[in-house]
């Protein structure tokens, strides 16, 4: 995210070329500065350019267009109604609470952004209208888990973060409406310089910043910057600016140049003075940075340019970003766990959030959607014999019935695999049992299912198949005795099987392993530490590949490499028990399950 100081400049650049730059993702809670920024944008856009605001849960019919019910009944012919995207052609669409956009709605917006028009056969009418819009996505997400769908982010050039903005800060406009109009006139004539293009692409690669599409957005922003300056030639400063605004916030790796000034130092300066009024204009790249390249400038000029852009960009990578990268990586890998965000929602007949309608008569718990039913019936009225205007009854047949479909979050199943072997029992079995009991209580409140697998001696067994019964779960745990070998591989496999079955039922499974990781019984029941370890690692890797949300609690007295390796292979969160008492452990499991559930949203 860009420091807020760039806000005014971003508004200007965006206003010059809304459709070309795709849009702005504005991460901010409701905030005066946010409203101020939106007002600024409104002022900068030409007076006739529409600016429409839509909620995140806008139905497809409003977004893309559809049958206009009133007009259709009145005129006895199908009348199409334009959707918001088409109505905002050559303007801007502002999406509130964009972090809650469904992948489906995001995909509809994406396709309009990609082709610049809406072409849809819907509800008996054919809608085709140009929709060259720029998007402002208002992201009110509080954590990294909540964010605008990545497919949409990939199409928005600017990422702004206002959360660090002080409330007293004012956004000082850098340009006025007439500047923007003039720049719009110049923009089509701005030439693309191959060296600038190469510099932008090189920087994007060095920073690991986004897909090729993002590089293209950066190029367009650079052109807009040149146009804003009244120039038709692209210059280095344009590339630097574009890289700073578009590429830097998406950096996923540290650039390979020597880090003279650590990113924290460089950027916190900017972040600390968001009020500075000349905030936006790119500070010239610090000279000591571009003269001090670790790579030889072998290719001469182009390489130089690359490095200048890169160095300038690096200075504006927001503070803590590199540190946060790992967090993002893990959250991303966890996000892709399960069947993805789209998969773990379950269609439900009667509960959950409404998500569209389907035809069919209401049975059982299904509810008739009166509005949609009327809409379906409207076009046929003449055909069905409602000939006169006086006859005000509407003829509805069974075909017209529409019922609302609902979606609800899938149930979660938490699978506990408890190591009851001799080595474990000595240390921590009681503590582990305590933690599981706390969790059970928690699961009971949330109506989650739990399953318990115990392993000791020669084999692992499902002590308790998935159930909601707290009593049974408690009893099965209480009866669990310790002692014997550690058939870890078998336990992991059984856990994976249970998780797989549960996923097939459309639930979201979470695996919690409580063990010291010292496998010493192989899958065929024979002893042998080495073979057992290898098998356990392989089984763990299989869990990792299936991307189940999982947690590995190391119950050994001293955390060791064995447990950590297994956790790594499982792609699980690793928690050494010595750090956690029973209650802390239960907190941990809750957060993993929540993350798994959330990512599966």
């Amino acid at each position, binding site marked *: 995210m860009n420091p807020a100081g760039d806000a005014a400049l971003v508004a200007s650049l965006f206003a010059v070329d809304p459709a070309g730059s795709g849009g702005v993702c504005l991460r901010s809670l409701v905030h005066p500065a946010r409203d101020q920024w939106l007002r600024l944008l409104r002022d900068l856009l030409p007076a006739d350019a529409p600016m429409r605001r839509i909620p995140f849960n806008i139905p497809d019919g409003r977004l893309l267009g559809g049958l206009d019910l009133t007009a259709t009944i009145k005129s006895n012919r199908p009348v199409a109604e334009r959707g918001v995207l088409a109505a905002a052609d050559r303007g801007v669409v502002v999406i509130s609470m964009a972090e809650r956009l469904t*992948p489906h709605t995001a995909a509809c917006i994406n396709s309009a952004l*990609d082709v610049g028009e809406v*072409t*849809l056969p819907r509800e008996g009418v054919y809608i085709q209208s140009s929709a060259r819009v720029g998007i402002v996505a208002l992201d009110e997400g509080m954590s990294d888990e909540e964010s605008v769908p990545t497919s949409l982010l990939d199409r928005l050039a600017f990422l702004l973060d206002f959360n660090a903005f002080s409330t007293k800060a004012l956004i000082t406009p850098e340009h006025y409406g007439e500047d923007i109009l003039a720049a719009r006139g110049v923009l089509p004539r701005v030439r693309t310089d191959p060296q600038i293009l190469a510099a932008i692409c090189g920087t994007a690669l060095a920073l690991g910043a986004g897909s090729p599409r993002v*590089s293209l957005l950066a190029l367009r922003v650079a052109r807009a910057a040149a146009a804003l300056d009244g120039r038709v030639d692209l210059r280095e400063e344009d590339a630097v600016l574009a890289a700073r605004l578009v590429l830097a916030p998406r950096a996923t790796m540290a650039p390979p140049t020597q880090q003279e000034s650590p990113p924290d130092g460089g950027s916190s300066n900017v972040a600390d003075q968001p009020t500075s009024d000349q905030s936006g204009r790119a500070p010239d790249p610090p000279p000591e940075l571009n003269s001090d390249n670790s790579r030889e400038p072998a290719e001469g000029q182009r390489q130089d340019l690359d490095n200048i852009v890169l160095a300038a960009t690096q200075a504006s990578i927001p503070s803590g970003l590199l540190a946060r990268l790992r967090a993002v990586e893990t959250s991303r890998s966890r996000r892709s766990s399960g069947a993805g965000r789209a998969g773990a929602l379950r269609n439900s007949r009667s509960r959950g959030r409404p998500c569209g309608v389907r035809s069919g008569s209401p049975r059982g718990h299904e509810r008739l959607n009166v509005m949609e039913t009327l809409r379906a019936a409207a076009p046929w009225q003449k055909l069905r014999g409602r000939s006169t205007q006086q006859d005000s009854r509407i003829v509805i047949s069974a075909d017209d019935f529409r019922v609302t479909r609902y979606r609800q979050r899938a149930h979660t199943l938490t699978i506990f695999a408890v190591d009851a072997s001799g080595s474990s029992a000595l240390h921590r079995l009681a503590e582990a049992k305590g933690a599981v009991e706390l969790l059970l209580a928690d699961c009971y409140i949330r109506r989650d299912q739990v399953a318990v697998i115990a392993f000791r001696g020669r084999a692992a067994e499902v002590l308790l198949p998935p159930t909601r019964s707290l009593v049974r779960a408690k009893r099965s745990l209480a009866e669990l005795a310790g002692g014997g070998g550690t058939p870890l591989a078998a336990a992991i496999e059984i856990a994976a099987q249970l998780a797989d079955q549960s996923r097939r039922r459309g639930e979201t499974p979470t695996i919690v392993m409580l063990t010291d990781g010292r496998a010493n019984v192989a899958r065929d029941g024979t002893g042998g530490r080495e073979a057992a370890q290898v098998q356990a690692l392989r089984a763990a890797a299989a869990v990792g590949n299936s991307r189940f949300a999982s947690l590995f609690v190391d119950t050994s007295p001293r955390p060791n490499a064995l447990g950590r390796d297994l956790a790594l292979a499982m792609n699980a969160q690793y928690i050494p028990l010595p750090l956690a008492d029973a209650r802390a452990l239960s907190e941990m499991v809750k957060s993993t399950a929540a993350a798994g559930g959330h990512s599966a949203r």
Partner: protein
Amino acid sequence: MQGVGAKARRLSRAEPSMHSVSRPVFPFSAIVAQDEMKLALISSAVDPSIGGVLVFGDRGTGKSTAVRALAALLPPMRAVVGCRYLCDPSTEETLCEECSQRAAGGPLKSRLVPVPVVDMPLGVTEDRVVGALDLERALSQGIKAFEPGLLARANRGFLYIDEVNLLEDHLVDLLIDVAASGENLVEREGLSVRHPSRFVLIGSGNPEEGELRPQLLDRFGLSVEVKTPVELAERVEVIKRRDQFERDKSAFVAQWKKRDDDLRRRIVAGRKRLAQIDMADSVLESAAKLCMQLGTDGLRAELTLIRAARALASFEQADTVAVSHLRRVAPSALRHRLRRDPLDESGSSARVARAVHEAFGP
């Protein structure tokens, strides 16, 4: 023939989604790298019976661009004049009811039409996919008439679904059924219509956003994975061409026209030669061996593998299908048909590569 005018009018109303007509499209030959994807799309154009292509991969890698470009590349085909389903006058068994009635009365008139490439957008409603009562006529004249939907328009052409993994479940069900039977049955609003709907299904999507139902996965003949280019030169070229295209579309299209024309000629030639391509028993055996080794379910995998290899050989003007052709199409033909093996940590592409290596040597 008095109805033809009205039909033509209605068809023209439906025309806009055929991109090639309405606005310049990024030329197929100008797509940088992504050879596997291009080859798969070309193969499916050479032999539509391969059964569609699934393009899965990173964002912003030109998935949609390639599919839309394919539309502009395809040579026109012959269709019965006035037929809403663009029936092929040369084959009797695939004619729609109307055309077969007319065919009994004498030879059918035909004309050249562009191969339809129909976009199925996510927000589409069910009635528009399968077809429904013609609203305009129902309202204005009170006549009950069938208005074909996307499945009718895609007959003999391509049906393209972007973000196929996000498609609503009830639409997926429809597709699975029609894609298998080649026929669309409409029973709604008092209409009872059946019409041919044979299309090449092309889907694209980003696996991070959701997975595909196995049944639908199986309907795709080939599946390819696309990755973001990591070479600087390649990426610069991608952006450069895209930028040139955006700045002056028609000039850019003209610049690549020769190569596109050339490619089109090779596809047409490939189609003509397809029936004459020989396939030695040893090659068939190799294909069978490969499929057995990978443990793919059923015969579909083998059939697709063979068809794709033949299409490739034909496109490349070889006389016989060689093992080298098999090797090249094996990843895309088999990748999505492997059973998930939880004990194998490598991805399905790597598993196919390993099996190919074992079956055919290095």
